[in-house]
Protein backbone atom coordinates (compact mmCIF):
# COMPACT_ATOMS: atom_id res chain seq x y z
CA UNK A 1 0.00 0.00 0.00
CA UNK A 2 1.76 3.18 -1.15
CA UNK A 3 1.88 5.85 1.50
CA UNK A 4 1.75 3.38 4.37
CA UNK A 5 4.94 1.83 5.75
CA UNK A 6 5.07 -1.32 7.82
CA UNK A 7 3.03 -1.26 10.95
CA UNK A 8 0.51 1.16 9.41
CA UNK A 9 2.56 4.31 10.05
CA UNK A 10 2.10 6.95 7.35
CA UNK A 11 5.01 7.75 5.08
CA UNK A 12 4.17 11.44 4.79
CA UNK A 13 7.03 12.32 2.46
CA UNK A 14 5.90 9.77 -0.10
CA UNK A 15 2.27 10.92 0.30
CA UNK A 16 3.29 14.54 -0.29
CA UNK A 17 5.38 13.54 -3.30
CA UNK A 18 2.41 11.69 -4.82
CA UNK A 19 0.05 14.56 -4.13
CA UNK A 20 2.37 17.09 -5.75
CA UNK A 21 1.99 14.90 -8.85
CA UNK A 22 -1.81 15.15 -8.39
CA UNK A 23 -2.15 11.43 -7.59
CA UNK A 24 -4.85 10.43 -5.14
CA UNK A 25 -4.01 8.63 -1.91
CA UNK A 26 -5.63 5.27 -1.29
CA UNK A 27 -8.81 5.36 0.77
CA UNK A 28 -7.16 3.62 3.74
CA UNK A 29 -4.30 6.13 3.65
CA UNK A 30 -6.75 9.05 3.70
CA UNK A 31 -8.46 7.42 6.68
CA UNK A 32 -5.13 7.16 8.51
CA UNK A 33 -4.08 10.70 7.56
CA UNK A 34 -7.35 12.18 8.83
CA UNK A 35 -7.13 10.20 12.08
CA UNK A 36 -3.59 11.49 12.65
CA UNK A 37 -4.64 15.02 11.77
CA UNK A 38 -7.44 14.93 14.35
CA UNK A 39 -4.93 13.88 17.05
CA UNK A 40 -2.79 16.86 16.11
CA UNK A 41 -5.54 19.45 15.66
CA UNK A 42 -7.36 18.61 18.89
CA UNK A 43 -4.35 19.97 20.78
CA UNK A 44 -4.52 23.34 18.98
CA UNK A 45 -6.32 26.23 20.68
CA UNK A 46 -9.27 28.07 19.10
CA UNK A 47 -6.83 30.97 18.89
CA UNK A 48 -3.31 29.96 17.82
CA UNK A 49 -0.48 32.42 18.41
CA UNK A 50 2.26 32.29 15.78
CA UNK A 51 5.31 34.31 14.78
CA UNK A 52 6.11 36.05 11.49
CA UNK A 53 7.46 35.60 8.88
CA UNK A 54 4.45 33.79 7.49
CA UNK A 55 2.60 33.80 4.18
CA UNK A 56 -1.17 34.00 4.49
CA UNK A 57 -3.43 32.29 1.94
CA UNK A 58 -7.12 32.93 1.24
CA UNK A 59 -9.76 30.75 -0.44
CA UNK A 60 -8.43 27.98 -2.71
CA UNK A 61 -11.65 26.05 -3.51
CA UNK A 62 -10.13 22.95 -5.05
CA UNK A 63 -8.06 24.85 -7.62
CA UNK A 64 -5.10 22.52 -7.17
CA UNK A 65 -2.99 23.80 -10.08
CA UNK A 66 -3.28 27.31 -8.66
CA UNK A 67 -2.22 26.15 -5.20
CA UNK A 68 0.97 24.78 -6.77
CA UNK A 69 1.35 28.09 -8.65
CA UNK A 70 1.01 29.85 -5.27
CA UNK A 71 3.86 27.72 -3.88
CA UNK A 72 5.95 28.59 -6.95
CA UNK A 73 5.32 32.29 -6.22
CA UNK A 74 5.59 32.23 -2.43
CA UNK A 75 7.98 29.31 -1.87
CA UNK A 76 7.27 25.66 -1.06
CA UNK A 77 6.80 24.56 2.56
CA UNK A 78 8.71 24.22 4.80
CA UNK A 79 11.02 26.91 3.31
CA UNK A 80 8.07 29.30 3.66
CA UNK A 81 5.70 29.20 6.67
CA UNK A 82 2.04 29.14 5.70
CA UNK A 83 -1.22 30.15 7.29
CA UNK A 84 -4.25 29.04 5.26
CA UNK A 85 -7.51 30.83 6.01
CA UNK A 86 -9.94 28.11 4.93
CA UNK A 87 -12.24 27.20 2.03
CA UNK A 88 -9.97 24.47 0.69
CA UNK A 89 -12.76 22.47 -0.94
CA UNK A 90 -15.81 22.87 -3.22
CA UNK A 91 -16.31 24.51 -6.63
CA UNK A 92 -12.93 23.65 -8.21
CA UNK A 93 -12.16 20.28 -9.84
CA UNK A 94 -9.56 19.08 -7.30
CA UNK A 95 -10.89 19.49 -3.78
CA UNK A 96 -9.62 16.04 -2.72
CA UNK A 97 -6.09 16.59 -4.03
CA UNK A 98 -6.01 20.05 -2.41
CA UNK A 99 -7.19 19.06 1.06
CA UNK A 100 -5.15 15.82 0.99
CA UNK A 101 -1.98 17.79 0.25
CA UNK A 102 -2.67 20.50 2.84
CA UNK A 103 -3.48 17.92 5.52
CA UNK A 104 -0.28 15.98 4.82
CA UNK A 105 1.76 19.21 4.88
CA UNK A 106 0.18 20.10 8.23
CA UNK A 107 1.11 16.69 9.65
CA UNK A 108 4.64 16.83 8.25
CA UNK A 109 5.36 20.44 9.34
CA UNK A 110 2.93 21.11 12.22
CA UNK A 111 4.68 24.29 13.36
CA UNK A 112 5.18 25.73 9.88
CA UNK A 113 1.74 25.10 8.37
CA UNK A 114 -1.54 26.26 9.95
CA UNK A 115 -5.03 25.52 8.71
CA UNK A 116 -7.99 27.67 9.80
CA UNK A 117 -11.56 26.50 9.24
CA UNK A 118 -13.63 28.14 6.49
CA UNK A 119 -17.39 27.95 6.03
CA UNK A 120 -16.92 25.29 3.32
CA UNK A 121 -15.16 22.99 5.80
CA UNK A 122 -18.54 21.67 6.90
CA UNK A 123 -20.80 18.74 5.98
CA UNK A 124 -23.79 20.89 5.06
CA UNK A 125 -21.96 23.16 2.65
CA UNK A 126 -19.55 20.64 1.12
CA UNK A 127 -22.38 18.24 0.34
CA UNK A 128 -24.03 20.93 -1.78
CA UNK A 129 -21.10 22.63 -3.46
CA UNK A 130 -18.99 19.93 -5.05
CA UNK A 131 -16.68 18.17 -2.55
CA UNK A 132 -19.14 15.36 -1.84
CA UNK A 133 -19.80 14.76 -5.55
CA UNK A 134 -16.07 14.75 -6.24
CA UNK A 135 -15.46 12.12 -3.54
CA UNK A 136 -18.23 9.92 -4.98
CA UNK A 137 -16.87 10.33 -8.49
CA UNK A 138 -13.19 9.73 -7.72
CA UNK A 139 -13.45 7.08 -4.98
CA UNK A 140 -16.79 5.52 -5.89
CA UNK A 141 -18.21 6.09 -2.42
CA UNK A 142 -18.48 8.77 0.23
CA UNK A 143 -16.07 7.35 2.87
CA UNK A 144 -13.32 9.82 2.02
CA UNK A 145 -15.79 12.69 2.35
CA UNK A 146 -16.73 11.33 5.77
CA UNK A 147 -13.08 11.12 6.89
CA UNK A 148 -12.33 14.68 5.80
CA UNK A 149 -15.52 16.30 7.10
CA UNK A 150 -14.98 14.59 10.48
CA UNK A 151 -11.50 16.10 10.52
CA UNK A 152 -12.88 19.56 9.62
CA UNK A 153 -14.60 19.64 13.03
CA UNK A 154 -11.12 19.85 14.61
CA UNK A 155 -9.74 22.77 12.58
CA UNK A 156 -8.98 25.93 14.56
CA UNK A 157 -11.05 29.12 14.20
CA UNK A 158 -8.43 31.86 14.39
CA UNK A 159 -4.75 32.74 14.46
CA UNK A 160 -2.90 35.72 15.90
CA UNK A 161 0.40 36.74 14.28
CA UNK A 162 2.98 38.38 16.60
CA UNK A 163 0.20 39.55 18.97
CA UNK A 164 -0.68 42.18 16.32
CA UNK A 165 -2.67 40.65 13.47
CA UNK A 166 -5.94 38.78 14.04
CA UNK A 167 -6.74 36.21 11.33
CA UNK A 168 -10.05 34.44 10.65
CA UNK A 169 -11.89 33.14 7.59
CA UNK A 170 -14.95 35.43 7.58
CA UNK A 171 -15.07 38.25 10.07
CA UNK A 172 -16.16 39.63 13.42
CA UNK A 173 -19.14 38.71 15.60
CA UNK A 174 -21.31 40.94 17.81
CA UNK A 175 -20.87 38.23 20.45
CA UNK A 176 -17.08 38.41 20.43
CA UNK A 177 -15.60 41.58 21.89
CA UNK A 178 -12.44 40.08 23.30
CA UNK A 179 -10.36 37.34 21.73
CA UNK A 180 -10.61 35.44 25.01
CA UNK A 181 -14.29 34.86 24.22
CA UNK A 182 -13.24 32.77 21.21
CA UNK A 183 -11.08 30.54 23.39
CA UNK A 184 -14.11 29.22 25.29
CA UNK A 185 -16.15 28.28 22.19
CA UNK A 186 -16.74 24.53 21.78
CA UNK A 187 -15.53 24.24 18.21
CA UNK A 188 -15.43 20.45 17.81
CA UNK A 189 -18.65 20.17 15.85
CA UNK A 190 -20.40 20.98 12.58
CA UNK A 191 -20.50 24.76 12.01
CA UNK A 192 -23.81 25.96 13.48
CA UNK A 193 -26.09 28.48 11.76
CA UNK A 194 -25.79 31.02 14.54
CA UNK A 195 -23.49 32.14 17.33
CA UNK A 196 -19.86 33.28 17.44
CA UNK A 197 -18.49 30.25 15.60
CA UNK A 198 -20.86 30.87 12.66
CA UNK A 199 -20.06 34.58 12.56
CA UNK A 200 -16.27 34.05 12.53
CA UNK A 201 -16.50 31.92 9.38
CA UNK A 202 -19.38 33.74 7.67
CA UNK A 203 -19.52 37.49 8.30
CA UNK A 204 -18.42 40.18 5.84
CA UNK A 205 -17.13 43.74 6.26
CA UNK A 206 -19.32 46.56 4.91
CA UNK A 207 -17.17 49.58 3.98
CA UNK A 208 -20.25 51.86 3.95
CA UNK A 209 -21.28 51.07 7.54
CA UNK A 210 -20.03 51.90 11.02
CA UNK A 211 -21.75 49.18 13.10
CA UNK A 212 -23.01 45.65 12.76
CA UNK A 213 -25.88 45.07 10.36
CA UNK A 214 -28.05 42.11 9.48
CA UNK A 215 -27.57 40.76 5.98
CA UNK A 216 -30.42 41.44 3.60
CA UNK A 217 -30.67 37.65 3.11
CA UNK A 218 -32.22 37.39 6.58
CA UNK A 219 -29.30 35.79 8.46
CA UNK A 220 -25.67 36.67 9.15
CA UNK A 221 -23.86 39.89 10.00
CA UNK A 222 -21.97 42.62 8.24
CA UNK A 223 -19.57 44.78 10.25
CA UNK A 224 -18.38 48.34 9.70
CA UNK A 225 -15.50 50.72 10.42
CA UNK A 226 -16.33 51.50 14.06
CA UNK A 227 -16.62 47.80 14.97
CA UNK A 228 -13.19 47.09 13.48
CA UNK A 229 -11.61 50.02 15.34
CA UNK A 230 -13.16 48.98 18.63
CA UNK A 231 -12.17 45.33 18.26
CA UNK A 232 -8.54 46.22 17.47
CA UNK A 233 -8.42 48.64 20.40
CA UNK A 234 -9.93 46.25 22.95
CA UNK A 235 -7.59 43.46 21.89
CA UNK A 236 -4.54 45.68 21.42
CA UNK A 237 -3.99 44.69 17.80
CA UNK A 238 -3.33 46.61 14.60
CA UNK A 239 -4.92 44.61 11.80
CA UNK A 240 -7.56 42.03 10.85
CA UNK A 241 -6.80 39.55 8.08
CA UNK A 242 -9.56 37.49 6.47
CA UNK A 243 -10.55 35.71 3.26
CA UNK A 244 -14.09 34.61 2.19
CA UNK A 245 -14.78 37.22 -0.51
CA UNK A 246 -13.74 37.31 -4.15
CA UNK A 247 -11.51 40.29 -5.02
CA UNK A 248 -10.77 40.97 -8.68
CA UNK A 249 -7.19 42.07 -7.88
CA UNK A 250 -6.59 39.21 -5.41
CA UNK A 251 -6.87 41.38 -2.31
CA UNK A 252 -8.67 44.36 -0.83
CA UNK A 253 -7.65 46.68 2.00
CA UNK A 254 -10.42 48.48 3.92
CA UNK A 255 -11.04 50.79 6.89
CA UNK A 256 -7.83 52.87 6.68
CA UNK A 257 -5.60 49.81 6.44
CA UNK A 258 -7.19 48.10 9.45
CA UNK A 259 -8.54 45.09 7.55
CA UNK A 260 -7.39 43.07 4.54
CA UNK A 261 -9.14 40.45 2.47
CA UNK A 262 -6.83 37.95 0.78
CA UNK A 263 -8.16 35.85 -2.10
CA UNK A 264 -6.06 32.98 -3.51
CA UNK A 265 -8.17 31.41 -6.27
CA UNK A 266 -7.19 33.03 -9.59
CA UNK A 267 -9.73 32.89 -12.43
CA UNK A 268 -12.23 31.68 -9.82
CA UNK A 269 -14.48 28.83 -10.99
CA UNK A 270 -12.31 28.82 -14.14
CA UNK A 271 -14.23 31.77 -15.61
CA UNK A 272 -13.98 34.96 -13.51
CA UNK A 273 -10.65 36.18 -14.92
CA UNK A 274 -9.65 37.60 -11.51
CA UNK A 275 -6.17 37.71 -10.01
CA UNK A 276 -5.17 35.99 -6.76
CA UNK A 277 -2.69 36.84 -4.05
CA UNK A 278 -0.74 35.49 -1.11
CA UNK A 279 0.06 37.90 1.70
CA UNK A 280 3.55 37.88 3.11
CA UNK A 281 3.88 39.12 6.68
CA UNK A 282 7.56 39.85 7.36
CA UNK A 283 9.24 39.50 10.77
CA UNK A 284 9.05 43.30 11.08
CA UNK A 285 5.27 43.15 10.56
CA UNK A 286 5.26 44.51 7.01
CA UNK A 287 2.48 43.20 4.79
CA UNK A 288 3.11 42.54 1.08
CA UNK A 289 0.58 41.08 -1.33
CA UNK A 290 2.18 38.88 -3.97
CA UNK A 291 -0.31 38.80 -6.82
CA UNK A 292 -0.45 35.83 -9.19
CA UNK A 293 -2.47 34.64 -12.15
CA UNK A 294 -4.00 31.24 -12.93
CA UNK A 295 -1.57 28.35 -13.55
CA UNK A 296 -1.06 27.40 -17.22
CA UNK A 297 -1.97 23.77 -16.40
CA UNK A 298 -5.64 24.83 -16.04
CA UNK A 299 -5.89 25.56 -19.74
CA UNK A 300 -4.50 22.19 -20.81
CA UNK A 301 -6.86 20.40 -18.46
CA UNK A 302 -9.83 22.40 -19.71
CA UNK A 303 -9.05 21.58 -23.34
CA UNK A 304 -9.05 17.87 -22.47
CA UNK A 305 -12.40 18.24 -20.72
CA UNK A 306 -13.91 20.30 -23.54
CA UNK A 307 -13.19 17.55 -26.05
CA UNK A 308 -15.42 15.20 -24.09
CA UNK A 309 -18.34 17.59 -23.47
CA UNK A 310 -18.92 20.04 -26.29
CA UNK A 311 -21.50 18.60 -28.67
CA UNK A 312 -23.93 17.88 -25.81
CA UNK A 313 -24.12 21.48 -24.60
CA UNK A 314 -24.21 23.06 -28.07
CA UNK A 315 -27.60 21.58 -28.96
CA UNK A 316 -29.45 23.34 -26.14
CA UNK A 317 -33.14 24.13 -26.55
Amino acid sequence: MPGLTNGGAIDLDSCIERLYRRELLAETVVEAVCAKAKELLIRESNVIHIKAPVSVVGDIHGQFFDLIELFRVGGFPPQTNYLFLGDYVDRGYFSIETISLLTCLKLRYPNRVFLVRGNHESRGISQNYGFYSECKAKYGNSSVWNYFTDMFDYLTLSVVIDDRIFCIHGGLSPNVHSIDQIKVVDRFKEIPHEGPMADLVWSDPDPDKEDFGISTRGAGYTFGAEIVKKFLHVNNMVHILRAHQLCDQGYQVLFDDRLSTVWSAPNYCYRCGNMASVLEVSDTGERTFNVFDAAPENEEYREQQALQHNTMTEYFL
Partner: protein
Amino acid sequence: MAATQQSPDQARLSIYAPTVTTPSITRAGWSIYCAKTAILKSDEIDQTTERIKIPLPEMIFGNNHVIVRHDASGWEIGFNAVDALDRVDKHGNPDGGLVKVSYSEAWLKDKAKSEDGVHEVVKPFDWTYTTDYRGTCGPKTTVFEKTDDRIPLHKLRRPDPILFFEDIVLFEDELGDNGISMLSVKIRVMPDRLLLLCRFFLRVDDVVFRIRDSRVFIEFGDNEVLREYVVKQDTYANVKRKVPFTTRDFGLFLRDQNWVAEQLPTIEAVTEKAKLLPGHASSDVR
Protein backbone atom coordinates in the same frame (compact mmCIF):
# COMPACT_ATOMS: atom_id res chain seq x y z
CA MET B 1 -41.26 49.24 -6.85
CA ALA B 2 -42.91 48.51 -10.16
CA ALA B 3 -43.72 52.19 -10.71
CA THR B 4 -40.08 53.14 -11.13
CA GLN B 5 -39.40 50.36 -13.64
CA GLN B 6 -40.11 50.23 -17.32
CA SER B 7 -42.18 47.48 -18.82
CA PRO B 8 -40.03 44.89 -20.60
CA ASP B 9 -41.13 46.25 -23.99
CA GLN B 10 -39.93 49.72 -23.17
CA ALA B 11 -36.47 48.67 -22.08
CA ARG B 12 -34.94 49.83 -25.29
CA LEU B 13 -32.52 52.58 -24.40
CA SER B 14 -29.61 50.87 -22.76
CA ILE B 15 -27.49 52.55 -20.12
CA TYR B 16 -24.76 50.26 -21.28
CA ALA B 17 -22.29 50.61 -24.14
CA PRO B 18 -21.26 47.45 -26.03
CA THR B 19 -17.53 46.78 -26.13
CA VAL B 20 -17.27 44.53 -29.18
CA THR B 21 -17.85 46.01 -32.63
CA THR B 22 -16.62 43.17 -34.87
CA PRO B 23 -19.15 40.40 -35.41
CA SER B 24 -18.28 36.92 -34.12
CA ILE B 25 -20.23 35.56 -37.09
CA THR B 26 -22.40 36.96 -39.89
CA ARG B 27 -24.95 34.68 -41.51
CA ALA B 28 -27.73 35.49 -43.95
CA GLY B 29 -27.67 39.20 -43.17
CA TRP B 30 -27.61 38.73 -39.39
CA SER B 31 -24.52 39.52 -37.31
CA ILE B 32 -23.77 38.25 -33.83
CA TYR B 33 -21.55 40.31 -31.52
CA CYS B 34 -20.22 38.47 -28.47
CA ALA B 35 -18.02 39.86 -25.70
CA LYS B 36 -16.65 37.39 -23.15
CA THR B 37 -14.13 38.74 -20.68
CA ALA B 38 -13.23 38.97 -16.97
CA ILE B 39 -15.34 40.22 -14.05
CA LEU B 40 -15.41 43.98 -13.50
CA LYS B 41 -12.47 45.67 -11.81
CA SER B 42 -13.15 47.44 -8.52
CA ASP B 43 -13.41 50.94 -10.08
CA GLU B 44 -15.83 49.59 -12.71
CA ILE B 45 -17.81 47.96 -9.90
CA ASP B 46 -18.02 51.33 -8.09
CA GLN B 47 -19.24 53.12 -11.24
CA THR B 48 -21.82 50.46 -12.02
CA THR B 49 -23.07 50.32 -8.43
CA GLU B 50 -23.53 54.06 -8.58
CA ARG B 51 -25.83 53.66 -11.59
CA ILE B 52 -27.70 50.53 -10.50
CA LYS B 53 -27.99 51.54 -6.82
CA ILE B 54 -27.84 48.03 -5.36
CA PRO B 55 -24.82 45.92 -4.34
CA LEU B 56 -23.73 44.01 -7.45
CA PRO B 57 -23.55 40.22 -7.65
CA GLU B 58 -20.24 38.79 -6.48
CA MET B 59 -19.26 37.77 -10.00
CA ILE B 60 -20.28 40.55 -12.32
CA PHE B 61 -19.32 40.19 -15.98
CA GLY B 62 -20.37 43.74 -16.83
CA ASN B 63 -18.37 43.86 -20.04
CA ASN B 64 -19.87 40.67 -21.46
CA HIS B 65 -22.68 40.84 -23.96
CA VAL B 66 -24.40 39.13 -26.86
CA ILE B 67 -26.05 41.25 -29.55
CA VAL B 68 -28.02 39.93 -32.51
CA ARG B 69 -28.32 42.51 -35.30
CA HIS B 70 -30.02 42.56 -38.68
CA ASP B 71 -27.43 44.34 -40.82
CA ALA B 72 -29.77 45.84 -43.44
CA SER B 73 -32.34 47.36 -41.07
CA GLY B 74 -30.31 47.89 -37.91
CA TRP B 75 -32.90 45.87 -35.96
CA GLU B 76 -31.17 44.45 -32.89
CA ILE B 77 -31.61 42.79 -29.54
CA GLY B 78 -28.83 42.49 -26.99
CA PHE B 79 -28.26 40.90 -23.59
CA ASN B 80 -26.01 42.35 -20.88
CA ALA B 81 -25.72 42.23 -17.09
CA VAL B 82 -26.22 45.90 -16.34
CA ASP B 83 -29.60 46.22 -18.07
CA ALA B 84 -30.71 42.95 -16.46
CA LEU B 85 -29.72 44.11 -12.97
CA ASP B 86 -31.44 47.45 -13.49
CA ARG B 87 -34.70 45.48 -13.47
CA VAL B 88 -34.12 43.82 -10.05
CA ASP B 89 -36.35 44.99 -7.16
CA LYS B 90 -34.09 47.59 -5.55
CA HIS B 91 -36.18 48.61 -2.56
CA GLY B 92 -37.74 45.33 -1.43
CA ASN B 93 -39.71 45.44 1.77
CA PRO B 94 -38.03 42.86 4.00
CA ASP B 95 -41.37 41.95 5.59
CA GLY B 96 -42.98 41.61 2.19
CA GLY B 97 -42.27 39.36 -0.75
CA LEU B 98 -38.49 39.03 -0.41
CA VAL B 99 -37.04 35.56 -0.16
CA LYS B 100 -35.14 34.73 3.02
CA VAL B 101 -32.59 31.99 3.55
CA SER B 102 -33.98 28.80 5.05
CA TYR B 103 -32.65 29.31 8.56
CA SER B 104 -33.50 33.03 8.74
CA GLU B 105 -36.39 32.66 11.18
CA ALA B 106 -34.39 30.51 13.60
CA TRP B 107 -31.39 32.78 13.23
CA LEU B 108 -33.37 35.94 14.00
CA LYS B 109 -35.05 34.26 16.98
CA ASP B 110 -31.73 33.11 18.39
CA LYS B 111 -30.20 36.50 17.74
CA ALA B 112 -32.97 38.19 19.74
CA LYS B 113 -31.86 36.18 22.79
CA SER B 114 -28.21 37.18 22.43
CA GLU B 115 -28.96 40.89 22.93
CA ASP B 116 -26.16 41.95 20.65
CA GLY B 117 -27.83 45.31 20.03
CA VAL B 118 -28.04 44.82 16.27
CA HIS B 119 -31.45 45.53 14.80
CA GLU B 120 -31.01 46.94 11.36
CA VAL B 121 -31.28 45.07 8.09
CA VAL B 122 -28.78 46.63 5.74
CA LYS B 123 -30.29 48.25 2.64
CA PRO B 124 -32.99 45.72 1.73
CA PHE B 125 -33.24 44.76 -1.96
CA ASP B 126 -33.96 41.55 -3.83
CA TRP B 127 -30.66 39.82 -3.05
CA THR B 128 -31.68 36.88 -5.27
CA TYR B 129 -31.28 39.24 -8.26
CA THR B 130 -34.48 37.91 -9.82
CA THR B 131 -35.00 39.80 -13.07
CA ASP B 132 -37.69 39.81 -15.76
CA TYR B 133 -35.12 40.96 -18.31
CA ARG B 134 -35.95 39.91 -21.86
CA GLY B 135 -33.13 41.70 -23.65
CA THR B 136 -32.24 45.23 -24.63
CA CYS B 137 -33.70 46.52 -27.87
CA GLY B 138 -31.93 49.00 -30.16
CA PRO B 139 -33.41 52.27 -31.46
CA LYS B 140 -34.33 50.64 -34.80
CA THR B 141 -35.90 47.57 -33.23
CA THR B 142 -39.59 47.19 -34.03
CA VAL B 143 -42.04 46.46 -31.24
CA PHE B 144 -42.63 42.89 -30.06
CA GLU B 145 -46.31 41.92 -30.13
CA LYS B 146 -48.02 38.91 -28.63
CA THR B 147 -48.49 36.03 -31.05
CA ASP B 148 -49.94 32.53 -31.15
CA ASP B 149 -46.94 31.37 -33.12
CA ARG B 150 -44.51 29.13 -31.27
CA ILE B 151 -40.79 28.52 -31.61
CA PRO B 152 -40.58 25.45 -33.91
CA LEU B 153 -38.80 23.00 -31.62
CA HIS B 154 -38.81 20.25 -34.24
CA LYS B 155 -36.48 22.36 -36.40
CA LEU B 156 -34.17 22.90 -33.44
CA ARG B 157 -34.03 19.22 -32.59
CA ARG B 158 -32.50 18.42 -35.97
CA PRO B 159 -28.76 17.79 -35.82
CA ASP B 160 -28.06 20.65 -38.24
CA PRO B 161 -24.42 21.73 -38.29
CA ILE B 162 -23.69 24.38 -35.68
CA LEU B 163 -21.76 27.18 -37.35
CA PHE B 164 -21.32 29.15 -34.16
CA PHE B 165 -21.89 28.45 -30.46
CA GLU B 166 -21.19 30.59 -27.44
CA ASP B 167 -22.06 30.34 -23.75
CA ILE B 168 -21.57 33.58 -21.82
CA VAL B 169 -22.18 34.27 -18.13
CA LEU B 170 -23.52 37.77 -17.39
CA PHE B 171 -23.60 37.53 -13.60
CA GLU B 172 -23.41 34.96 -10.86
CA ASP B 173 -23.81 35.16 -7.10
CA GLU B 174 -23.37 32.38 -4.59
CA LEU B 175 -25.82 34.06 -2.20
CA GLY B 176 -23.36 33.69 0.66
CA ASP B 177 -23.29 29.93 -0.01
CA ASN B 178 -27.06 29.71 0.26
CA GLY B 179 -27.50 28.68 -3.35
CA ILE B 180 -26.90 30.31 -6.69
CA SER B 181 -28.26 33.15 -8.76
CA MET B 182 -27.01 33.20 -12.32
CA LEU B 183 -27.81 34.92 -15.59
CA SER B 184 -26.24 33.47 -18.72
CA VAL B 185 -26.73 33.52 -22.48
CA LYS B 186 -26.28 30.66 -24.92
CA ILE B 187 -26.48 31.13 -28.65
CA ARG B 188 -26.21 28.73 -31.59
CA VAL B 189 -26.24 29.65 -35.25
CA MET B 190 -27.19 27.00 -37.82
CA PRO B 191 -27.27 27.40 -41.61
CA ASP B 192 -30.94 28.46 -41.74
CA ARG B 193 -31.79 29.72 -38.24
CA LEU B 194 -30.49 30.78 -34.85
CA LEU B 195 -31.55 30.26 -31.25
CA LEU B 196 -30.55 32.35 -28.27
CA LEU B 197 -31.41 31.45 -24.67
CA CYS B 198 -30.97 33.95 -21.86
CA ARG B 199 -31.57 32.06 -18.62
CA PHE B 200 -31.97 33.41 -15.11
CA PHE B 201 -31.48 30.50 -12.70
CA LEU B 202 -32.03 30.72 -8.95
CA ARG B 203 -31.60 28.11 -6.24
CA VAL B 204 -32.04 29.15 -2.61
CA ASP B 205 -31.10 26.07 -0.60
CA ASP B 206 -34.08 24.53 1.19
CA VAL B 207 -36.33 27.35 -0.06
CA VAL B 208 -37.00 27.77 -3.78
CA PHE B 209 -36.01 27.22 -7.42
CA ARG B 210 -36.74 29.82 -10.08
CA ILE B 211 -36.07 29.97 -13.81
CA ARG B 212 -36.80 32.81 -16.18
CA ASP B 213 -35.97 31.94 -19.78
CA SER B 214 -35.95 34.34 -22.70
CA ARG B 215 -35.54 32.63 -26.07
CA VAL B 216 -34.96 34.47 -29.32
CA PHE B 217 -35.55 32.49 -32.49
CA ILE B 218 -34.82 33.71 -36.01
CA GLU B 219 -35.59 31.73 -39.17
CA PHE B 220 -33.32 33.49 -41.65
CA GLY B 221 -35.81 33.26 -44.51
CA ASP B 222 -38.61 34.96 -42.54
CA ASN B 223 -38.65 38.68 -41.86
CA GLU B 224 -39.55 38.28 -38.23
CA VAL B 225 -38.13 37.46 -34.81
CA LEU B 226 -39.86 35.27 -32.24
CA ARG B 227 -39.24 35.82 -28.55
CA GLU B 228 -40.53 33.50 -25.86
CA TYR B 229 -40.47 34.35 -22.15
CA VAL B 230 -41.11 31.56 -19.64
CA VAL B 231 -41.32 31.75 -15.84
CA LYS B 232 -40.87 28.54 -13.86
CA GLN B 233 -40.82 28.09 -10.13
CA ASP B 234 -41.23 25.47 -7.41
CA THR B 235 -40.24 24.86 -3.82
CA TYR B 236 -36.87 23.29 -3.09
CA ALA B 237 -38.59 20.38 -1.35
CA ASN B 238 -40.75 19.54 -4.38
CA VAL B 239 -37.76 19.48 -6.69
CA LYS B 240 -35.62 17.48 -4.27
CA ARG B 241 -38.36 14.83 -4.11
CA LYS B 242 -37.86 14.23 -7.84
CA VAL B 243 -34.18 13.33 -7.48
CA PRO B 244 -33.86 9.58 -8.21
CA PHE B 245 -34.05 7.82 -4.86
CA THR B 246 -31.10 5.60 -5.81
CA THR B 247 -28.67 8.47 -5.32
CA ARG B 248 -27.53 10.05 -2.10
CA ASP B 249 -25.81 12.75 -4.12
CA PHE B 250 -28.83 14.99 -4.61
CA GLY B 251 -26.51 18.02 -5.00
CA LEU B 252 -25.37 16.69 -8.38
CA PHE B 253 -28.97 16.96 -9.65
CA LEU B 254 -29.89 20.21 -7.92
CA ARG B 255 -26.84 21.95 -9.45
CA ASP B 256 -27.79 20.79 -12.97
CA GLN B 257 -29.80 23.65 -14.46
CA ASN B 258 -31.15 21.56 -17.34
CA TRP B 259 -32.37 18.81 -15.05
CA VAL B 260 -34.01 21.34 -12.72
CA ALA B 261 -35.63 23.15 -15.69
CA GLU B 262 -37.36 19.91 -16.66
CA GLN B 263 -38.78 19.47 -13.15
CA LEU B 264 -40.20 22.96 -12.64
CA PRO B 265 -43.83 23.75 -13.56
CA THR B 266 -44.40 26.70 -15.88
CA ILE B 267 -46.05 29.65 -14.14
CA GLU B 268 -46.16 32.02 -17.10
CA ALA B 269 -45.29 31.79 -20.79
CA VAL B 270 -45.68 34.33 -23.53
CA THR B 271 -44.49 34.37 -27.12
CA GLU B 272 -44.03 37.64 -29.00
CA LYS B 273 -43.18 38.48 -32.56
CA ALA B 274 -41.37 41.46 -34.04
CA LYS B 275 -41.68 42.09 -37.79
CA LEU B 276 -38.71 43.55 -39.60
CA LEU B 277 -39.72 46.71 -41.48
CA PRO B 278 -40.61 46.23 -45.16
CA GLY B 279 -37.84 47.20 -47.55
CA HIS B 280 -35.38 45.74 -45.10
CA ALA B 281 -35.71 42.19 -46.33
CA SER B 282 -32.92 39.96 -45.16
CA SER B 283 -30.42 38.94 -47.78
CA ASP B 284 -30.84 35.49 -49.28
CA VAL B 285 -29.70 32.45 -47.40
CA ARG B 286 -26.48 31.12 -48.75
